[in-house]
């Protein structure tokens, strides 16, 4: 078990270094002089503004220093929690802007991921080897997984928001309200939360159901299932064992899918103008605010790594083989 966790930690540590390095490197690969390009992109005319912006960016990038020093400085400021200053929301520090948006993203992502996983697994387990349900669930599941996240979001916003008028379609709360601890605000928050959550939930649902169905069928063909059946064990019992075994790949699948779901959450938020990280990414791109973009994305990477680590710990708790150092999960 210790070896397993140590190996995982090594992978995540390495991944973090690679991600941060990419984040540092890519802007420096920009063709031409990045500072000049940034200033040009901001499209300001005043010579004084240009001069001060040039200076600002040069200091920010630390371009006058040797390249290894730039890299070390980047790490240094990262550990101090200093992600730079947002150009778009000047003079708010990027870390603050990101922290304000994180709760919204987590608020739709965590329930959507967990619920879709639980519901999808039970639907898939039920559908396996039941002809009628399988014939319905399988094609529907495949079509739902094939949907681009933002398209389902657009459909829901149009259907339930614009056409039926049941739910609001934009923002995290009513623009007339001020965030506060009150029932009316909480209710408003909830109403704005429903559609983004639902679209994320639905797209993820299909994949889990299909995965579980295939795994259960595979498990039911295995020797232990046949042996149990030969002993005359009730079908229910056999399926229960199959389900428990099929859970393990699904937990690994959850870790693998995090990045994809996260991308889905980002575009879903954009459709609903939901004030989470996705909206920040969009605003950062539209306003050419690269510090905000990098800060947000770095946050996302850290979040995915943390979530992966949590899933690994859950895996250790669920699969006894990893504890005793037998095969279990391959790192």
């Amino acid at each position, binding site marked *: 078990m210790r070896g397993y966790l140590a190996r995982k930690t090594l*992978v*995540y540590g*390495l*991944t973090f270094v*690679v*991600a941060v390095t*990419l984040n540092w490197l*890519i*802007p420096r*690969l*920009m*063709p031409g002089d990045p500072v000049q390009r940034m200033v040009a992109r901001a499209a300001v005319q005043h010579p004084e503004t240009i001069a001060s912006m040039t200076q600002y960016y040069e200091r920010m990038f630390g371009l006058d220093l040797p390249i290894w020093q730039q890299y070390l400085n980047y790490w240094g400021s990262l550990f101090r929690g200093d992600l730079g200053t947002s150009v778009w929301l000047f003079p708010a520090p990027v870390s603050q802007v990101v922290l304000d948006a994180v709760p919204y993203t987590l608020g739709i992502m965590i329930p959507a991921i967990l619920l879709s996983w639980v519901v999808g697994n039970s639907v898939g387990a039920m559908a396996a080897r039941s002809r009628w349900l399988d014939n319905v669930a*399988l*094609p529907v599941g*495949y*079509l739902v*997984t*094939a*949907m*681009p*996240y*933002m*398209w*389902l979001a*657009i459909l829901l*916003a*149009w259907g339930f*928001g*614009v*056409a039926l008028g049941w739910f609001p*379609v934009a923002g995290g709360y009513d623009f007339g309200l001020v965030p506060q601890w009150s029932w009316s605000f909480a209710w408003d928050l909830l109403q704005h939360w429903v559609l983004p959550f639902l679209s994320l939930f639905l797209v993820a649902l299909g994949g*889990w159901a*299909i*995965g579980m169905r*295939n*795994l259960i069928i*595979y498990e039911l*063909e295995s020797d232990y299932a046949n042996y149990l059946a030969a002993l005359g064990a009730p079908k229910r019992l056999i399926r229960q064992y199959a389900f428990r075994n099929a859970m393990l790949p699904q937990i690994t*699948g959850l870790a*693998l*899918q995090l*990045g994809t779901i*996260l*991308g889905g959450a*980002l*575009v879903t938020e*954009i*459709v609903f103008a939901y004030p989470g990280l996705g909206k920040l*990414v*969009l605003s950062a*791109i539209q306003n050419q605010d*690269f510090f905000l*973009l*990098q800060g947000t*994305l770095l946050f*996302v*990477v850290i979040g*995915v*790594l943390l979530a992966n680590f949590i899933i690994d710990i859950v895996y250790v708790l669920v699969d006894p083989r990893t504890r005793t150092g037998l095969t279990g999960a391959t*790192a």
Partner: protein
Amino acid sequence: MTATQPVAGPGTEASDQPGVAGPTTSGRKPGGDVRETLYFALRNPKVLIGAVVVLGFLLLGLIGPAFLRYAPMDYAGPPMAPPSADFPFGTTTFGQDVFAQFVAGLRSTFLVGLLGGGVAAVIGMTIGFVAGYRGGLIDELLNMLTNVVLVIPGFVVLIIINAYLGVRSVPMQALYIGVFSWPWVARAVRSQTLSLRSRDFIDLARLSGVGVGTILRREVAPNMYSYLFMTFVLLFGGSILTAASLDFIGLGPTNAMSLGLMMNQAVQWSALHLGLWWWFIPPGLGITLIVGSLYIMNVGLDEVFNPKLREM
């Protein structure tokens, strides 16, 4: 999508793209396999339906532009017109022909799928084969690389790359998508190669003194052709979805039309609030049908290649 591992049936051939009309590789000696696979593929409704839908869209994208009167960005007709005989998918707020955009978008979609899926397949398979066959230190290193790329949220890196480097052509976009979507392929191919490595016929090939590349190409890969083909189909669909998301964020190609870009513009110009459903439904529906058909086709292919799964 969680890629479940279909068991590769030994003896199946790669050239049997089911549903593809036209000559398959003729003159091959053990033609029985191809013919048998084709026989089952053409009788599998999942494969047939999937292939017909995908090929239908491909055909529309390929020959459609020849019959269009307007370019995708032309201000062709009255603004916000619902579907009619003149404009089968209606027009945008600016009077652009939605159908013309859709057809042009299909081309980018297939291009991204083909290139992105192809790049990912080549990288993933190469790393998987080498890691699985060589083992030892090389395996450890490649495995580490695979795990690192697997955990990095590729979509995020793609956003940074596109935003900074201004990658704004469809092929470049596809290339970068491919570079970040290979890890699960490498894993799956590695584990299958691992199980093939100790077989007798591989030992025989090694004894005969041929190189590693030849063994991988001639002895290992043919046993996995069916699996590799199905992997490519999944990568194809995945690349399309990733590209659509990037385009939707506004990091799509600037010199071409794409289905994701259509949705981006529809939302940006408040097609939802104006009720212009003909603007945002076709692009998403097109992607869903193409990718969904690919997935369903894959289930069918699994049944074709793996006799155990065939319905009796």
